[in-house]
């Protein structure tokens, strides 16, 4: 992710004013200032997905060209969702405004804007719920915390529901377990009913429909990228690997985020997957149809999430695999863990994942039939099935960023650490209230990773960066490892801004570097083409 030329300086952004302005919180006015919001959805992508009220508009314009009956649509939509999701009704009714969540949000910490306190962000929707759906609100209106749904309120929803990354850190601290991400999800879903969405979500979703992945890479391009990676790996290791695409009868379908075979530094982890699976002789295939682990549908609506997610099981069935392994993707795992089984399952045609190398049966995936590659690799290491040379990663002093969704949505806390401790010698944890289930978001998740939104991303990413800075200064950490493609896309820019001198890498990049492959040539460089420790004097590509 590149920095825009006009972005602010760290000393400007860090001067955060936590004193709320003297004004009624019910006043919905927001200012759409460049750097703090995202562009509207491209009409072409909306049309492709069959979305309603396709039109051109931008948040900075006064007239959002809403349909005349927009209010009726939103209120009916809210009514339907209150009936459909018991959780939503509970979250609307149960909050006592205790404030435990208030200072837990990275956007609040980074901006000082009280409406980024999760309690108040939720209140933006809750006030409308109270006005139109509760007896007290219907009678007492404002006195009961009710608020009329107006166009300024709608614009305020747009502003703040796209200043939440659905990371769920606040939910960890809520004594009632209110999942504020679900409130944001509903808020965005309602806005999409009247054709208000952002392009960074709608276009990837449309691409995913059109070509199989968010980036819009077509099947022949996907094949070309996989083949290129195999050749590249051969140049580095001397080993020829033969990954397959759309191969029927393979034991495993392997699904990765598309950025893994497109972006940097994602790609180095992709090489790690290829090396690892070759070394253990895994019988696996990629799919060009399900060539995306991520699911930007989650950031749009339940329906869109279901439509995009359906491809994974459909392809597992068509190819006749036994089970599915997923790569280093973040929100994919929330969809997988929380929704896939009931939305598109049960996947009765698959078997409970069982490692062909160790015989371990992954009981935790008995229902979904899909396991995380970190679980799979940790099990291989535990059973001493891999020959690893951690010294090859000695140029790195490493810390681990728990990506929000694998950590908080599926509890994947130990496996990445176990792997790291086996593939590198210098691993340092960030402060305990910033890792594991309390991890701080990258600030760019849930479709907010755009250039136009850069200032808010840098603000939202500040708490994470601040914790990295701590280990950078105290332990000389120079590599931030993560297991999410959005992290890999956005943390490099965040580090350059707040903690220069820290690079970003993936877990399986380090696995691949450390993996001693049978018959490999003498390795001079790591996957990035940087000389391995002790090989610096040699000429490298």
């Amino acid at each position, binding site marked *: *992710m*590149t920095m825009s*030329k006009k972005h602010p300086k760290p000393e400007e952004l860090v001067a955060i004013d936590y004193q709320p302005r003297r004004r009624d919180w019910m006043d919905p006015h927001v200012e759409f200032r460049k750097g703090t919001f995202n*562009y509207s959805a*491209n009409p072409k992508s909306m049309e492709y997905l069959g979305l309603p009220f396709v039109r*051109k508009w*931008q948040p900075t314009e006064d007239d959002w060209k809403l349909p005349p009956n927009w209010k009726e649509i939103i209120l009916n939509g809210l009514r339907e969702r209150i009936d459909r999701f018991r959780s939503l009704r509970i979250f609307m009714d149960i909050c006592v405004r205790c404030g435990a969540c208030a200072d837990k949000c990275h956007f609040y910490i980074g901006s000082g804007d009280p409406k980024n306190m999760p309690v108040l962000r939720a209140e933006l929707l809750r006030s409308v719920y109270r006005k139109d759906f509760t007896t007290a609100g219907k009678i007492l209106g404002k006195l009961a915390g009710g608020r009329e749904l107006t166009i300024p309120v709608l614009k305020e929803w747009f502003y703040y529901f796209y200043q939440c990354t659905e990371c769920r850190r606040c939910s960890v601290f809520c004594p009632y377990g209110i999942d504020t991400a679900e409130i944001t999800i509903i808020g965005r879903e309602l806005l999409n009913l009247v054709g208000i969405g952002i*392009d*960074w979500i709608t*276009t*990837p979703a449309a*691409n995913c429909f059109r070509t199989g*992945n*968010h*980036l*819009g*890479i*077509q099947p*022949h*391009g996907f094949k*070309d*990228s996989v083949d*290129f*990676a195999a050749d*590249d790996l051969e140049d580095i290791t001397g080993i020829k690997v033969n990954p397959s695409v759309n191969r029927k009868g393979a034991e495993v379908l392997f699904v990765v*985020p*598309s*950025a893994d*075979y*497109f*972006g*940097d530094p*994602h*790609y180095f982890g992709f090489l790690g997957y290829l090396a690892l699976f070759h070394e253990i002789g895994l019988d696996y295939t990629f799919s060009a149809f399900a060539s995306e682990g*991520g699911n*930007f549908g989650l950031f749009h609506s339940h329906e869109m999430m279901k439509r995009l997610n359906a491809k994974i099981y459909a392809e597992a069935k068509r190819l006749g695999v036994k089970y599915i392994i997923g790569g280093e*993707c973040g929100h994919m795992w929330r969809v997988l863990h929380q929704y896939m089984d009931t939305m598109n399952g049960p996947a009765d045609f698959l078997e409970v994942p069982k490692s062909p190398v160790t015989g371990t049966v992954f009981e935790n995936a008995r229902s979904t039939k899909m396991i995380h590659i970190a679980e799979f690799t940790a099990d291989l290491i535990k059973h001493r099935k891999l020959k690893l040379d951690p010294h090859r990663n000695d140029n790195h002093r490493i810390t681990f960023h728990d990506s929000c969704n694998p950590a908080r949505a599926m509890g994947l806390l130990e496996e990445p650490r176990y792997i790291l401790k086996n593939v590198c010698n210098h691993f340092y944890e960030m402060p305990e209230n910033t890792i594991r289930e309390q991890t701080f978001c990258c600030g760019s998740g849930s479709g907010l*990773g755009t*250039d*136009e939104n850069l200032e808010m991303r840098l603000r939202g990413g500040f708490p994470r960066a601040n914790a990295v800075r701590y280990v950078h200064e105290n332990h000389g950490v120079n590599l931030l490892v993560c297991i*999410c*493609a*959005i992290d*890999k*896309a956005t943390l490099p820019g965040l580090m350059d801004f707040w903690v220069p001198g820290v690079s970003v890498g993936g877990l399986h990049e380090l696995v691949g570097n450390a993996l001693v492959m049978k018959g490999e040539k003498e390795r001079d460089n790591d996957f990035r083409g940087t000389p391995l420790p002790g090989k610096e004097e040699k000429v490298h590509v």
Partner: protein
Amino acid sequence: MPIFEQGEVKINVDEDGFMEEPDQWNEKVALALASTEGVDNLTENHWKVVNYLREYYQKYGIAPMIRKLCKETGFSLKEIYDMFPSGPAKGACKVAGLAKPTGCV
């Protein structure tokens, strides 16, 4: 839709200045778009990158992997950043008339 106009060049662009209709691309357009990226002059090396991107785009309908771009043109990622300060995706692709990549990139 914003319109980008410079000299004889008049094209539809998105909010970030990427071409809406990549088929309208030609060398004059490339020069005009380069000026918006802080690149005043397209050297032989710039053209090597741009032409490779065009070639790949015509075959695959999208930009190549960053690593592939580096390997095929022989430039390191740093050298590409030196040529196109916004980087391969936001800078070089824009000059080559490709669409902005979206998703986890």
